[in-house]
């Protein structure tokens, strides 16, 4: 088949149709098989929410308090600090002055975050 100068994109359209059929035909065959040989066996337990065999309690649409971002921030401060303080402490003896100053700067930046959280009253357990 020659698409000719009038329909230069005919091949693309044919390929598109073939691609769609390629996806749809197996689905249709599976649906046909299910209709003929595999009757749907639905039931209240089967449709229920899966919770490790237990009956689910309450609603799945639980709201979380948006203030938890503060805990995430404070966690990040301590986490990153611990991550870098350990190698800092190990190689503390052999560090040049510039490295120590840079590290102090970094720690002070994190401490600033801690001071901010303290000021905000996040550290008080309510």
């Amino acid at each position: 088949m020659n698409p000719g100068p009038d329909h230069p994109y005919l091949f693309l359209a044919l390929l598109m149709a073939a691609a769609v059929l390629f996806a749809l035909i197996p689905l249709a065959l599976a649906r046909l098989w299910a209709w003929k040989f595999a009757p749907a066996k639905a039931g209240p337990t089967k449709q229920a929410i899966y919770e490790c065999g237990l009956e689910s309690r309450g609603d799945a649409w639980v709201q979380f308090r948006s203030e938890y971002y503060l805990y995430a921030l404070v966690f990040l401060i301590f986490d990153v600090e611990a991550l870098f303080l350990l190698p800092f402490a190990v190689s503390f003896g052999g560090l040049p002055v510039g490295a120590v100053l840079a590290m102090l700067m970094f720690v002070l930046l994190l401490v600033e975050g801690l001071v901010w959280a303290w000021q905000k009253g996040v550290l008080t357990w309510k």
Partner: protein
Amino acid sequence: MDDRLRNELSRQGIFVTTFEDLYNWGRKNSLWPLGFGLACCAIEMIATSMARWDLARFGAEVFRPSPRQADLMIVAGTVTKKMAPQVVRLYNQMAEPKYVIAMGACAISGGPFKQGYNVLKGIDRFIPVDVHIPGCPPRPEALLHAFMTLQRKIDGQTLSGATRPRHLDPEAPAEFPVPDFGGRDLEPPRNPGIWRPPALPREG
């Protein structure tokens, strides 16, 4: 189609099969077990799925974390009465067609804990079990043998007719009643539609 014609054709290099055979061949080689264990038998089940015994040879290494994706339940271990409702509910939530292997003495009868006040005396009181494996615990070879037994069973299932399995029968029940964990026992203590205890022939 009769076997002689099929043999004759296969000698000529022509392979003939039926939808039923293809369907069963695919199903029996892709049994996905539900990933859960109840007691020590589960350790043997895990060992079976690992490299030394290699359940993957049977296409069954994909232990699924959700009953929606599993079609084989291996009841591996002691079923306590507290746990039995959950096991039955998990079985109900599995997709059809589904099969059950009761692994070990506890799962088939209560085993060494049969006299215990809190032990269910066999999971086949509530759900239909396809293969029972005795042993305490059964070795991985025994579980593999149960797999092959189940595969043979699936291979022999028909797509239509009176002998078709229950998942192909629209009249067969979709779910089995989940027992309640009552004050003294499970309520009801058994499903009489499933559990048919053998009649012991007594002499004298």
